[in-house]
């Protein structure tokens, strides 16, 4: 959404501020968020002087942590261009199952909670990545299923312990070391792992690549289908374990040799561990590059049946100058289309069946 530069909104802002601010805000969305946060805190302090203090901040963090963890999972899904509508239901189910099984002890109760997330996430992932149901529909469906099953279950099953174990309660609601909420101790590692995965591993790069142009990814033979599957597993409690597994399997070595070994891949759409974080990262997220590359991959498949083959035979390096791609007789959309098979002409009139 940010690369659509010529929106009316940004033009208006540019006219008011002279353009420099717009480019800053467009490239660094986080600046906007920090400014907004500061403005909100200042607003609270102005409205009720004396509200903002250490206790207030610690309480805010306590309440923000669950939302932050859910948002972390949603981030992964949305980077691939999908959406997960089932997170709220899964989080509720996870909490409920954990609470009702707390008689079994701390570890089994947490496992039950994580299990809900993993099961629903796995179903979502199978539906989205393998069966190709739109993410919106799939997660809407599983969300409804989870909610319905939970309500039915909650009428049958009573809690087997009067309250959740002290450890879980402390983990979720307690504070330690003079006001640091324990939630934060769960949230911060998840955030760090997530940022690391997105910036430094091939898996994170694949997520961006799929969101940019999943067709190109598929043509690259990158494990896009598996890639869809993992982030769909997003529940409040399941992140932790899941993310660790991802790091282990995907950091550089998980990709097939076809992707690793070819020089033009490395130059253009490097799906492996980046050498320089920012330079490579930005280039791979460039939609024109992705498009160009998908064109190359497609041409490799289609071969000489592609009419453009005769106009622009492949160069030695396997790269086309982007302007040749843009000026092709089909316009820019060509690169998005998969090769079509020739269709028989259909009979008309009475024989239409």
């Amino acid at each position, binding site marked *: 959404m940010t690369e659509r530069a010529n929106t*009316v909104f940004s033009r208006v802002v540019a006219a008011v501020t002279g353009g420099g601010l717009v480019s800053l805000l467009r490239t660094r969305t986080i600046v906007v968020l920090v400014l907004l946060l500061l403005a909100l805190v200042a607003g609270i302090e102005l409205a009720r002087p004396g509200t903002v203090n250490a206790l207030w901040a610690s309480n805010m963090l306590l309440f923000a942590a669950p939302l932050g963890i859910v948002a972390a999972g949603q981030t992964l899904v949305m980077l691939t261009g999908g959406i997960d509508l089932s997170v709220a239901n899964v989080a509720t189910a996870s909490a409920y199952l954990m609470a009702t099984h707390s008689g079994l002890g701390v570890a089994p109760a947490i496992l039950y909670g994580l299990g809900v997330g993993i099961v629903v996430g796995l179903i979502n992932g199978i539906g989205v990545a393998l069966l190709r149901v739109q993410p919106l529909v799939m997660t809407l*469906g*599983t969300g409804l299923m989870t909610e*319905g099953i939970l309500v039915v279950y909650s009428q049958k099953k009573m809690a087997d312990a009067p309250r959740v174990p002290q450890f879980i309660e402390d983990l979720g609601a307690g504070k330690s070391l003079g006001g640091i909420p324990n939630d934060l101790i769960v949230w911060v590692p998840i955030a760090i792992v997530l940022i690391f995965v997105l910036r430094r591993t091939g898996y994170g790069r694949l997520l961006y690549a799929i969101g940019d142009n999943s067709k190109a990814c598929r043509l690259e033979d990158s494990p896009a289908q598996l890639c869809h599957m993992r982030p769909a597993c997003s529940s409040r409690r399941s992140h932790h374990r899941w993310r660790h597994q991802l790091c282990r399997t995907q950091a550089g070595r998980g990709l097939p040799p076809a992707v690793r070994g070819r020089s033009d891949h490395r130059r253009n759409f490097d799906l492996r561990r980046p050498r320089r974080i920012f330079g490579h990262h930005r280039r791979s997220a460039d939609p024109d590059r992705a498009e160009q590359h998908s064109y190359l991959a497609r041409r490799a498949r289609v071969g000489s049946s592609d009419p453009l083959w005769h106009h622009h035979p492949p160069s030695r390096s396997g790269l086309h100058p982007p302007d040749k791609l843009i000026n092709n007789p089909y316009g820019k959309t060509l690169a998005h289309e998969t090769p079509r098979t020739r269709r028989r002409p259909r009979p008309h009139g009475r024989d239409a069946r």
Partner: protein
Amino acid sequence: MITPSEGKSPIMAVRATSNMRLTTRFWRSLRRDPSLFFMPALLVVSLAMTVVIHPQFSDFDLQSLAMGALPLAFAAAAQTVVVISGGIDLSIGSVMAVANVLAASTMEKASFGQSLLLAVTVLMAGAAIGALNGLIVVLSRIPDVVATLTSGFIWGGIALVILEKPGGGAPQEFLNLGTGTLFTAWLPNALVLLVAAVGLIWIPLRRSKLGLQLYAVGSDRIAAFRSGVNIDRTRFAAYIFSGLFSAVGGLGLTMTTGIGAPLAGVYYTLSGLGAVVIGGISLAGGRGRMLGPVMAAFVLTLIPTDLIFLNIDPNFGQVIQGTLIVVIVMVGGFVDKERSRK
């Protein structure tokens, strides 16, 4: 998702069928759009199941079915317009809630004539809200999922500001528009209202130039642009109609419940989306008919009723609804794949 067989343009469909036999037209439209046959069949099957389960099925049951399905059908209709144009509107429930509380809070002491005037005002407010949504989506280029989700939060809050807790009311004659029966006991007013409202808004729209443009923009935005369709204006119009249908749904909610409830609308966003999906509308846009989602709304209302008659927990209805959504989309995907392979 867009396969060659989906690439039919509505223009072609209209022109090619104009001087054709009725049976040929039927089979062709059936082949193009299996949901045309599938949805009525599903509705008939679920109605038959209800009658088998509950042999005392009477006019009263039919009335309560129509009343229960009325707001959901309008929510589905609102979603359908936007989805056909290639977008999605997650603020429908909140807009319905705003319309509901607006109507209930202002009509409480009004006469029947005044309440009709107020209803028109509410409809215009709904269209204005839709227009605002459309403006946000078109001008800011924020993806419509995000834009309408956030504006949904705003309208949900405004509904709470207008009416803090469930209350208000409307004159009995106005409520009778949605709850009573006018002609025979087997033809509830809710059904008449639904058919009239959807027919009056949707059929002229679909037959107009704008309707064609809606389908064109939904099926392939770039192709539509190159054919001279003003994409921004078309999407904007889709959101206006979505707001209008949501407002009708809010009024329907007022008629069937008799009060205004600021939180009642929330349920209809996702259920309406479910009905759209079950009704055979492709979320990729550009395909589908209004009949499917409206019938799907009736099916979705029948499921919990049947479960109650069967002495099963009606909350399993949600599970069935979710399964139906996923399975239908999956089967639709396979059918499309098979057809495009031919």
